């Protein structure tokens, strides 16, 4: 027998043995040992770092953060199982507190982005006035929200497991309609003390929601810039922070009637707006539209025949820098809206962050290529607005869609913002120096709608959304009723929020007056309204309106 034959025979025998062994009945495995309960006494035997070793320092980090660091409730009893479980619970809430606070700090920094975007898109003669509106809207809005707004928005939210309960926020004022309860506004939380709201979880929730509210307020200053009387700005902003924003936010996020469209009327999981395309951006954009209609266009914006003139901003460098700051802050806006990183499906924050950056990217591309193809140049300010439009649009669906959906939503937003700017400018003849109505209003509504189309039903935030079991699922994934809930949110924004804002702006116009004098507007608002030039050492030269050079 040759060597080759011997090798083949050995291989066949080995294969046969393997098959026979594999088909032989397996020996029954021993039953797993019964789980053993951990008793307090077991914890006594856990090794702790020796005191002498700790005195030498811990360069490797192996002795820091051990059983010795678990807080003991009763020193006489020593460490107990209850102590360990309490520490686990506190660690979860601590992670969520830190997550929510830090992302809230990122959102707060967006105010700086808005400030320089708006100022850069306005003329140098109004730089101080535009910056001051963006600077003080932070304080004015915060005061209104602290005194009144937060209680209206969140006073009846009825608990949040990520933040340890926020149990005192449990009183929603409702009416009965069609046999169902319609929550209209909360009643606990005035001054962050009334109704037992002096509570650590409530404080975290307030900080996060406050910076969101301020984002909505600062949208209006962009549309009304370069002709808005400073006193009127203060009054209108206070009312918006106290009532306009909190009302709609209550309906969407504070256990109000929109959130309960699923539980009460079987419409999907109720109105779903993950981080506020509708609550923040559409509210801001539609209020800006109401303000823009009432205050009227800047002098020179339109010819006597109604033809629009381009009024170029003074610094595209700070405009695009501001867009980057806003894109950075959006990583707080959307992922932070989980209100936690631990438990309840909150690890979805990875997906939310990636969706956010992808939609911003496709939004920037959409606007840039649209302008390039239509006008021959990749317009810088519209590319920036495209990025922001993509971010605005993905804000509502960021927690419910996959990356392909996010990219499509952003791309559509980038083109939509260009079309909307043209419509507002040429057809409606509403003067919007920064394009805020289109970026935030139009694309905020698009973001709300896109949830009802693109939500893929894969998210799982503790097994339910708005009190309805299951995941938010849009029309393209089989649930048409979610789209109806989103459309009801849209009509509430257009039909109620716009109307409410319009009436408020109209009253302020009659009482305070929105518009500065023609003389002040032509000189620039810095001296007449603020008493100081934004750029005192620059020689400001009058440039014919419409000139691009």
């Amino acid at each position, binding site marked *: 027998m040759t060597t080759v034959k011997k090798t083949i025979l050995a291989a066949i025998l080995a294969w046969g043995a393997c098959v026979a062994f594999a088909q032989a009945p397996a020996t029954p495995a021993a039953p797993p040992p019964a789980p053993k309960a951990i008793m307090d006494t077991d914890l006594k035997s856990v090794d702790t770092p020796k005191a002498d070793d700790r005195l030498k320092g811990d360069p490797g980090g192996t002795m820091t953060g051990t059983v010795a660091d678990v807080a003991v409730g009763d020193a006489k009893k020593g460490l107990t199982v209850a102590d360990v479980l309490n520490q686990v619970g506190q660690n979860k809430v601590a992670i969520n507190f830190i997550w929510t606070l830090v992302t809230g700090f990122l959102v707060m920094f967006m105010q700086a982005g808005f400030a320089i975007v708006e100022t850069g898109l306005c003329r140098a003669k109004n730089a101080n006035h535009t910056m001051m509106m963006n600077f003080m809207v932070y304080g004015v809005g915060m005061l209104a929200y602290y005194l009144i707004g937060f209680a209206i928005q969140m006073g009846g939210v009825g608990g949040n497991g990520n933040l340890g309960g926020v149990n005192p926020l449990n009183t929603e004022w409702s009416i009965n309609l069609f046999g169902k309860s319609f929550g209209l506004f909360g009643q606990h939380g005035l001054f962050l003390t009334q109704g037992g709201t002096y509570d650590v979880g409530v404080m975290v929730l307030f900080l996060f929601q406050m910076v969101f509210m301020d984002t909505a307020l600062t949208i209006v200053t962009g549309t009304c810039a370069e002709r808005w009387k400073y006193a009127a700005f203060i009054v209108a902003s206070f009312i918006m922070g106290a009532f306009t924003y909190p009302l709609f936010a209550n309906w969407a996020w504070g256990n109000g009637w929109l959130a309960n469209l699923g539980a009460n*009327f079987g419409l999907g999981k109720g109105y779903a707006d993950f981080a506020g395309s509708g609550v923040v951006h559409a509210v801001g954009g539609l209020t800006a539209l109401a303000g823009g209609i009432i205050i009227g266009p800047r002098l020179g914006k339109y010819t006597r025949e109604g033809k629009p003139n381009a009024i170029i901003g003074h610094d595209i460098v700070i405009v695009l820098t501001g867009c980057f700051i806003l894109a950075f802050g959006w990583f707080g806006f959307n992922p932070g809206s989980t209100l936690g990183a631990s438990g309840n499906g909150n690890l979805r924050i990875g997906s939310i962050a990636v969706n956010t950056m992808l939609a911003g990217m496709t939004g920037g591309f959409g606007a840039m290529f649209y302008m390039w193809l239509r006008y021959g140049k990749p317009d810088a300010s519209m590319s920036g607005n495209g990025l922001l439009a993509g971010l605005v649009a993905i804000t509502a669906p960021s927690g419910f869609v996959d990356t392909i959906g996010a990219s499509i939503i952003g791309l559509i937003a980038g083109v939509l913002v260009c079309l909307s700017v043209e419509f507002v400018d040429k057809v409606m003849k*509403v003067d919007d120096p920064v394009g805020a109505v289109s970026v935030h209003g139009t694309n905020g509504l698009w973001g709300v709608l896109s949830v009802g189309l693109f939500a893929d039903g894969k998210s799982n935030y503790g097994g339910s959304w708005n009190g309805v079991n299951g995941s938010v699922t849009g029309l393209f994934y089989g649930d048409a009723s979610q789209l109806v809930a989103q459309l*009801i949110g849209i009509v*509430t924004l*257009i039909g109620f929020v*716009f109307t409410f804002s319009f009436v408020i702006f109209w009253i302020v116009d009659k009482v305070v007056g929105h518009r500065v004098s023609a003389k002040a507007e032509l000189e620039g608002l810095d001296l007449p309204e603020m008493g100081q030039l934004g750029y005192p050492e620059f020689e400001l030269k009058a440039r014919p309106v419409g000139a691009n050079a």
Partner: protein
Amino acid sequence: MALAGVVITFLGFLISVMSLGMTSSVGGRMVMVLIGIAVSLVGIIGVINRAFLKNAIWRK
């Protein structure tokens, strides 16, 4: 004129909310809500804005 626009805009909202009580079918509600959106947009763009454009500063 602007006041009529405000009423029409708000009417669109009311039409949509009424859909919740008038029908339980998804299709029926969707049609009513879309009508409500259209009415509200007519109120804003077609009535309120047009009323303000009649006295626009650039016409003077």
